[in-house]
C-alpha cells in the first residue's frame, strides 16, 4: 500500500507526470457534465410541462432515449460512432471537437445527466402547489414572471434531495471515462494494479477517494437542503 501511494499517489490525486489524471480529472468530468446538464435541464424541464405536444414530445423523446439506454453505450456511440461519420470528419469544427476524447466524454455525460435532471426538475415543477400559482396570477404576474419568481425557485428547492442523488450517481458514472481514454481515478488504479499485481490495495485506494468525494457531496447537499428547504421543516 505504501509503495503504491509513493509511486502513484500524485497520479491518483491529479497529475500523472504529463496530464491531468485521477481525482482532478474525475472532478472536472463531474463538475462540467453536471453544470452543462443543469443548464440544458432547466429550459427542457419547462418545455417538458408545456401543453403543446410539439414542444413536450421532443423533450420526452430525448429523456426517454437517454434514460432508457446505458451511459456506456451512449459514450461508445459518441466517442467511436459519431467520430466515424464522414460528415463529422469533413466539417472542421466538428472534427476538432470530436477528435478530443475529453469532449466526447463530457458531451455524453452531460446529455445523460441532463436527461435525468430534466425529469427531476419537470416533476418538481409539476408538483408546484396550485395555490401558489393562483396567488401569483391573482397578483397579476405574467407567465414569465410567474416562472421566474415562483415556480422555478420553489421547484429547484424541492428537487434538491433527488438532485443530490443524481449528482452522486454521476460521480460513480465517471468511472466509465477511461473507455474513451480519459485518465480518471479508475485508470490510475488499473495502472497501479498492472504494475504491482496487487488488486486490493490499488482499488481500495480508488474506492476510498470516491468515498471521500461522495461524502463531501452529501455533506454539501445536506447543508444546502437545510438552508434552502428550511421553510419545509416543521
Amino acid at each position: 500500500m505504501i509503495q503504491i501511494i509513493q509511486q502513484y499517489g500524485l497520479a491518483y490525486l491529479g497529475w500523472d507526470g504529463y496530464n491531468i489524471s485521477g481525482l482532478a480529472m474525475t472532478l472536472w468530468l463531474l463538475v462540467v457534465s453536471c453544470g452543462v446538464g443543469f443548464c440544458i435541464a432547466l429550459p427542457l424541464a419547462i418545455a417538458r410541462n408545456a401543453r403543446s405536444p410539439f414542444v413536450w414530445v421532443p423533450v420526452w423523446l430525448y429523456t426517454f432515449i437517454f434514460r432508457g439506454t446505458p451511459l456506456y453505450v451512449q459514450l461508445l456511440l459518441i466517442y467511436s460512432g459519431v467520430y466515424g461519420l464522414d460528415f463529422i470528419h469533413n466539417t472542421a469544427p466538428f472534427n476538432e471537437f470530436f477528435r478530443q476524447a475529453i469532449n466526447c466524454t463530457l458531451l455524453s455525460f452531460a446529455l445523460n445527466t441532463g436527461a435525468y435532471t430534466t425529469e427531476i426538475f419537470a416533476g418538481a415543477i409539476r408538483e408546484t402547489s396550485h395555490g401558489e400559482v393562483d396567488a401569483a396570477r391573482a397578483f397579476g404576474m405574467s407567465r414569465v414572471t410567474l416562472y421566474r419568481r415562483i415556480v422555478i425557485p420553489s421547484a429547484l428547492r424541492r428537487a434538491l434531495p433527488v438532485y443530490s442523488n443524481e449528482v452522486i450517481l454521476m460521480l460513480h458514472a465517471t468511472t466509465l471515462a477511461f473507455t474513451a481514454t480519459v485518465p480518471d481515478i479508475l485508470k490510475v488504479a488499473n495502472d497501479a494494479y498492472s504494475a504491482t499485481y496487487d488488486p486490493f490495495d490499488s482499488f481500495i485506494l480508488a474506492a476510498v477517494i470516491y468515498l471521500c468525494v461522495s461524502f463531501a457531496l452529501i455533506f454539501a447537499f445536506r447543508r444546502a437542503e437545510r438552508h434552502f428547504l428550511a421553510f419545509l421543516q416543521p
Partner: protein
Amino acid sequence: MKTIFRPALAALCVLGVAFAPVAAQAKKLTEITFGVDPTYPPFESLSPSGAFQGFDIDLGRAICAQLAVKCKFVNQGFSGIIPALQARKFDAILSSMTVTPERAKAIAFSSEMYNEPTSLVEKKGAGLVPTAASLKGKTVGVEAGTIQETYAKTYWAPAGVKVVSYPGQDQVYADLLSGRLDASLQDSVEADYGFLKTPKGADYQFGGNVTYDPQDVLGSYIAIGVRKDEPHLLKKINEAIAAIIANGTYKKIESKYFNFDVYAATPAAK
C-alpha cells in the same frame, strides 16, 4: 557440503541413475529435449494433428541439425516451465522466454534467439519513425499497462508527443482507423498478426522498430533457458545459434514467419 551434493542428489532422484553432473557433462551429446508451451502462435503451437510447429520449433530443429543431435519437444505449461527444467524433465526451455533478471537468477540463458521488437504502426506514407523528434506534436496510442506505454511516457511524452493510453489494444487500432491517432506503439508481432495482416490494416504500415532505450524499459531479448549446472550444453547451443545465423538458415526460417527483422534491430541500444 549440502549445496555441493544437491545437484547430484537431484540427478539421482529424477533419473534414478547414479550420474553425477560431472559424468553427465562428459557424456556425448546425442539428443536435446526442449520444453515448450505450445499456446503462442506463431512462435510455438500444435498443428491439428498434434505436432509441434512454429518459429521457435523450426529454430530448435535447426539448432539440433547444426549440432547433429536428435530433437525432442515436450509439452509444458509456461508457469511451471522453470521448475520442470530444474526437475530435469527436459534439457532446455524453448518457449518465447524473455530474459529477465528474476529468471536469470534461476536458470542460465543462451545468446539471443530473437526479439519481439516494439514497433510503430502508421498510415501508409506518413513517414513517421519511432523517435521523439519525428513524433513531436503527433498523437500516439498505446495499451495501458504495457511496456510500450511506459516507454512512450518515459521518452516521448516529455518531448511533446501526445501519448494516449487505451484500455485495450483493439481500441488503439480502432482509433488509428478513425484518425484520432497518428500512430500506435506496440509489439511488432502483435501489430503484424493482429492488425497489418487483417483487411482493416491494408492502408497501414510499420514505421520502424524502437532502438533507443537507455533505461532498459522494454526489457531484454528472448533466449533458450538451460540449467545452470550445464555450461557445456549452453556453450553448444550458443555455438549452434551463431552458426545458423551465420549460414543463413536463420534468415530463411525468419522469412517464413515474419515480414520484418526479429533479430538485428534489437536489443535496443543501451
